[in-house]
């Protein structure tokens, strides 16, 4: 590698380097600095992310292929990295008080989040199946540990173990698919793979390889039939980590799926049928099973499965609008889902777990402002205008109908009508029941900031979607 190429590679991956360096320094500092002023960890971690964000934005001007074709810093990656930064920072803000209450305010907690962030960033930029794998593993390993961070709780340990085993198997399957691709085509580059996949006639070995790779990726976004881990892991993990996992790793999974599937060559093939089936089944399962959940975190787990299904419809649609619709969907989902998780996390105070939906009865009576925020997030998740959630769904439907998938669009809206039921059921509990207890939400300034930001995003993108839409459309690769 020449000096110039090396310089280019370092420049292209500067944000990742910043995050990893910051994480390593914090790991050391966390052991040296005496316990007590735990705040510094939060702010230092957040500062690391902000520096990385700054670097990303400054370097966003041009497309930089790097590391001998394994990595690329393009606008598509920039968009996803921004989603990751946003969700990570919001997770930090939400964690400050929650981690203290749960007694997990260790430096490793923040450091692992930073490593997970770095893994996702690599996934968004990866153009080779091996660099995808590196990012995927870095992200997964960090989240396995974070899931089990509540060491004293059986639930958390169980979730972590389940996640490790299933995640390990799925990664193994993914890797096996990669090895098949390499054996059959002699390359692991996405472009090369796409060229091979669309070769005519399709090699059954390659088809098998694609199925394996898809299985590995679909596991990460929690789509059927690889969704089994989602409810248990979401329920067992610390709520802040659940919030993080419901948004960021999912977006990272979609980033890779988009790169693999919307490669113009693959898009021309019939691969969309597989994705369409996955999308329909995922959304149906998420929507229907969520109807009978009593636990708030489990409900949000199934809701996130349903949303993954809806975003998958955008992948089915394909084309520039399809890709942009998935990206916009994930951005909006970040705001509204972290918003609703923020309210759940805030309720965790004293002996009140905030996990049972019925326990929120009459919340609107004592805290009308917070109840209004929950109403906003829930209606946004249900996709009712004028919230952002509506525009996200609307744009996916536009992309679907543009490509002539009217039947799929009808299925999607009917299932979202089913999904609306369990969101408004929570609104009902909050507004239409008499309170049975006093509420003391842990409303710290950082939680307030999170709620303000997510609410602004949820209502702001809903009312003025033009700028965000253009942003997503201009970030579509090759378009």
């Amino acid at each position, binding site marked *: 590698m020449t000096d110039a190429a090396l310089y280019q590679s370092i420049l292209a991956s500067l944000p990742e380097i910043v995050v990893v360096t910051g994480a390593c320094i914090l790991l050391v500092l966390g052991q040296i600095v005496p316990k007590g002023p735990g705040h510094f960890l939060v702010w230092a971690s957040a500062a690391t992310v902000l520096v990385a964000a700054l670097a990303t934005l400054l370097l966003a001007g041009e497309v930089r292929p790097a590391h001998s074709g394994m990595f690329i810093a393009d606008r598509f990656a920039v968009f996803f990295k921004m989603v990751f930064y946003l969700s990570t920072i919001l997770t930090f803000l939400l964690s400050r008080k929650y981690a203290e209450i749960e007694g997990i305010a260790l430096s490793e907690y923040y450091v692992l989040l930073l490593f997970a962030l770095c893994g996702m960033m690599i996934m968004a930029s990866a153009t080779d199946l091996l660099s995808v794998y590196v990012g995927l593993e870095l992200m997964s390993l960090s989240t396995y540990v974070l899931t089990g961070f509540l060491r004293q709780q059986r639930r958390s340990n169980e979730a972590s173990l389940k996640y490790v085993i299933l995640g390990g198997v799925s990664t193994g399957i993914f890797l096996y698919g990669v090895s098949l691709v390499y054996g059959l085509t002699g390359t692991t580059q996405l472009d090369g793979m796409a060229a091979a996949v669309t070769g005519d006639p399709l090699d059954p070995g390659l088809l098998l390889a694609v199925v394996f790779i898809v299985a590995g990726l679909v596991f990460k976004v929690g789509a059927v039939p690889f969704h089994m881990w989602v409810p248990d892991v979401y329920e067992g993990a610390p709520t802040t980590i659940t919030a993080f996992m419901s948004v960021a790793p999912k977006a990272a999974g979609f980033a890779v799926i988009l790169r693999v599937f919307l490669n113009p060559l693959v898009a021309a093939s019939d691969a969309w049928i597989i994705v369409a089936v996955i999308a329909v089944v995922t959304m149906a399962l998420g929507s229907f099973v969520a109807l009978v959940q009593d636990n708030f975190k489990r409900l949000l787990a199934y809701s996130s499965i349903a949303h993954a299904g809806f975003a998958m419809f955008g992948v089915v649609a394909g084309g520039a609008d399809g890709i942009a619709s998935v990206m916009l969907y994930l951005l909006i989902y970040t705001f509204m889902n972290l918003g609703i998780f923020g309210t759940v996390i805030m309720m965790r105070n004293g002996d009140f777990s905030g996990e049972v939906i019925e326990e929120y009865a009459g919340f609107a*009576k004592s805290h009308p402002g917070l109840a209004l925020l929950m109403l906003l997030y829930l209606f946004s998740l249900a996709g009712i205008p*004028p919230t952002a959630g509506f525009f996200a769904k609307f744009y996916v439907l536009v992309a679907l*109908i543009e490509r002539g998938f009217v039947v799929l*669009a009808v299925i999607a809206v009917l299932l979202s*009508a089913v999904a*609306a039921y369990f969101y408004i059921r929570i609104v009902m509990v909050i507004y239409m029941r008499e309170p049975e207890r006093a509420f003391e939400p842990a409303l710290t300034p950082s939680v307030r900031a999170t709620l303000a930001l997510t609410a602004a995003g949820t209502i702001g993108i809903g009312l003025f979607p033009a700028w965000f839409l253009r942003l997503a459309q201009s970030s579509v690769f090759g378009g």
Partner: protein
Amino acid sequence: MAFPLLSLIVFMPAAGAAVLMFLRSDDAVRWTALGVTVLDLALCIAMLAGFDTTTHEMQFTETRPWVPALGITYALGIDGISALFVFLTALLGWICVLASWVAIDRKVKEFMVSLLAMQALMLGMFCALDLFLFYVFWEAMLIPMYVIIGVWGGDGRVYAAFKFFLYTLAGSLLFLIGVIALYFHGGETFDILALTAQDLPFRVQSWLFFAFLIAFAVKVPMVPVHTWLPDAHVQAPTAGSIILAGVLLKMGAYGFLRFSLPMLPEASVHYSTLMLALSALAIVYGGLLALAQDDLKKLVAYSSISHMGFVTLGIFTLNLRGLEGGILQMFNHGVTTGALFLFVGLIYERTHTRSFADYGGLMKAAPVYTAFLALFTLSSMALPGTNSFVGELLVLSGAFAANLAVGAAAVLGALLGAAYLLGMYRKVALGPASVGARFKIRDVNAREMVAILPLAAFVLWVGLYPKPFLDIIDASAKHLLAQVHGRGDGP
């Protein structure tokens, strides 16, 4: 660009709702809500004063880019059809505030915020000239209405609120698919006027017609998708019922007038017989159901189904008399049934019962109340001299011209109307004075009188001199028919 009068009318209640959130005392909330709604009505009157009845063109138009990448604009404007409903919405707005003055005694602020939000959304929907904007207003209404029914309603309010929400949502989402399909077939624009000018192939029109029909039929509501209405009406607080009957039910009919007829003319003509049959079914079936009720509010609710049947009947006769009658009847139904729900609410506040078995002899205890109740009951029956007579006569004459059997069924429905309404009046007002003795009924007070009188005035005004109202509709209705029956050759 001229003064944005329509934006002001639409967003004044929304701004009022925002102000309310910062008020502390319930009285301040009530008076502010009243002030905002009265001011809004004043603006609407000013708008009607400047309204040109000689043209079918959109007036007071405003256009701003909103989401240029998808061809979405923020466009408002009104023609003769929407002007009447903008006015009706504003008229009922402050009456709703008055009707909830003492009836709503907890969470007053939240209630008034929902009420004002509702009004802003309804006004916006009638003014919208962009299909996306229209859909946003149309669908966003579910949120405040769900809260109004679910929080301040009767004992079965949660069930009723869910039923209302899910019925309308399921209908609306298919409408959304239709809207997006129309967007791609109509040249990638959401501009209603541009879409109206498109000439779509019949097959596309048919699909869209049924996609739209599901959404609109749920709102109207037409038999057999009417079952949410009795629950929602009976459980909703008085103001909620007035909004539901007065404005919300008109949204479906307005949808037919604004989208189905002008955008899908061939499909509208082709399926008009089906629509006439469904309307006749709603008239007779709604009437029969009303006849069987022993609950005052349920009776009025079922009578709404029957009366809205006359509206859709008039619209799908696709001739001038039927159409104008249907539109006028929409306005009349808003006034009359709104008033009847107000009266049900007034008596319920006093007696806390709605069952006919508990009523009787109210005439002695509350003579003013019963006198006005008589007026509105007669208006609902379409007695000559009242507003509904004009509307129903036009609809019936249109219906007989269009289809003899349907006309006959509609007359049967009108007879049924007389039967259940007179029966209701007899059970409530006449007979031995059971209620007065038990409940010490007081007659209407000044506040209630202020809410009743304007409605009574419109009943008589439209009944005795309907010309100003028909003038507003006339040009737009004629233009609409010209669009349906092929451009240029007219009805």
